[in-house]
């Protein structure tokens, strides 16, 4: 929530909300605080999910604001870079083109605030660290993850095996444990798809999150986080895939 501006005054949007309906502002502030507090997911993880959602849909204002919040609660530049690069999987290069603005902003903000800076070029990764060389490797990767080769991968295998090979390498490199856990990366992708009301994407990444140990409560908190930035439809789309624990 873009609360206080640099001069210490209420941000203009809050001021206006307060003017027209102070009860709504009060109710929103409470909801926002409750959803973003440490729970099954930490505040930092929730802020990172909000960065990812807003990079993926190219909504700069909220992306930058949550980048700032993520840094305030301890996110490093490397972690943000990993969160933002995951968005490429769901929304392609335009998400990265937007995400770069968040990285530039983060670098400047970290310099200004002297927040702990962890920055390593290439993020400690060696190129091709995760490279699959054959389609059999790819099939094995999906079998391990989903228990079977998903239909979308089957069709890609039939019509464009090269694309499947290279996409799987991108996917595997992007979704591996790094500075950010694979679980959180999958949750970012869940958040992106709930926010954009794309049920198939929610389903795929909910399965992915579960496969790396996400609990139903963590997935539910991811959806609730998305509600703040995308409205109640994010919950409609996410809740249908939740299992009662």
């Amino acid at each position, binding site marked *: 929530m873009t609360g206080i501006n640099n001069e210490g005054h209420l941000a203009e949007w809050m001021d*206006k909300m307060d003017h*027209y*309906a102070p009860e709504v502002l009060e109710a929103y502030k409470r909801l926002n605080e409750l959803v973003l507090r440490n729970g099954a997911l930490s505040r930092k993880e929730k802020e990172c999910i909000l960065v990812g959602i807003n990079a993926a849909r190219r909504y700069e204002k909220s992306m930058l604001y949550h980048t700032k919040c993520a840094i305030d609660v301890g996110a490093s530049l490397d972690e943000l870079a990993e969160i933002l690069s995951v968005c490429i999987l769901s929304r392609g290069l335009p998400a990265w083109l937007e995400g770069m603005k968040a990285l530039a902003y983060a670098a400047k903000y970290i310099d200004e605030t002297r927040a702990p800076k962890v920055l390593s070029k290439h993020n400690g990764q060696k190129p091709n660290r995760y490279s699959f060389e054959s389609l059999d490797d790819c099939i094995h990767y999906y079998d391990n993850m989903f228990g079977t080769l998903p239909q979308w991968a089957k069709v890609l295998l039939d019509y464009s095996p090269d694309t499947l090979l290279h996409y799987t390498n991108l996917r595997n490199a992007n979704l591996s444990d790094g500075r950010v856990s694979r679980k959180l990366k999958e949750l970012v992708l869940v958040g992106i798809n709930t926010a954009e*009301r794309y049920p198939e994407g929610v389903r795929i990444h909910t399965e992915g999150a579960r496969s790396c140990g996400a609990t*139903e409560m963590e997935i*539910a908190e991811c959806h*609730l986080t998305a509600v703040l930035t995308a409205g109640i439809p*994010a919950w409609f789309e996410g809740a249908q895939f*939740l299992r009662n624990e």
Partner: protein
Amino acid sequence: MDTGLAYFKKVYDEVPGWVQKMHDFSPEVLSHYTRIRSEIMKDGALTRKEKDVLIASMNAARLYPRSMLYHTKGAVDNGITIPELVEYFLVAYLYKGIESLKLSIKALAYALELKGKCYESKTTEVVTLDDIFHIIIQYMDNEDTSFVREVFQNIQTGDRERIERKILEDGNVSSRLKYLNMVGNFITELNGKGASSWIKKARNFGASEADLADVGYICILTAGIPAWFEISDSL
């Protein structure tokens, strides 16, 4: 019964699955969500009925059936008539074209069902605007269909300005509300820049700043807090 569950039971006649799940996972969040929703949806500069139907139309405009249908029910419960509903959905058509109007047929059929009039759903057969208008006129039954027929005649001319003027003129729904609907269509998609000229036009047709703020609030419910960022710049 928990307050949140009771609130939504009253709204929907039963506790929807999504409400029960939110309660199961976080009763506190449901309680706070209920509070903001009830604050926003109460009668204000815009009435409850107007708020529900605007959200229904905005969701038709962004092709999201679930919220369109939920809020169609809210509008019906608060007294919307079929001719009014049709005029709001024509505003969604103005924004997004034939796909939104095709989708809105489901809402009209649902509204009729809620009013105890059942028609066979024909949405799978709908392909052309001619089909859609035929169904809409059929759904309007004994109501005055002259406005809708005139809109269709204007659409057939292909003259965008004429079509816009006709759809947005006073009919069963005022121009003021139709322009507010257009503002909401843009704001829901976080397009404040696109909304700005419609905000000016809405003011010209009598919309107050409080009306526009109410549009912003309902957009928060269906599109999140960025919707308020987008509209508040123009207030």
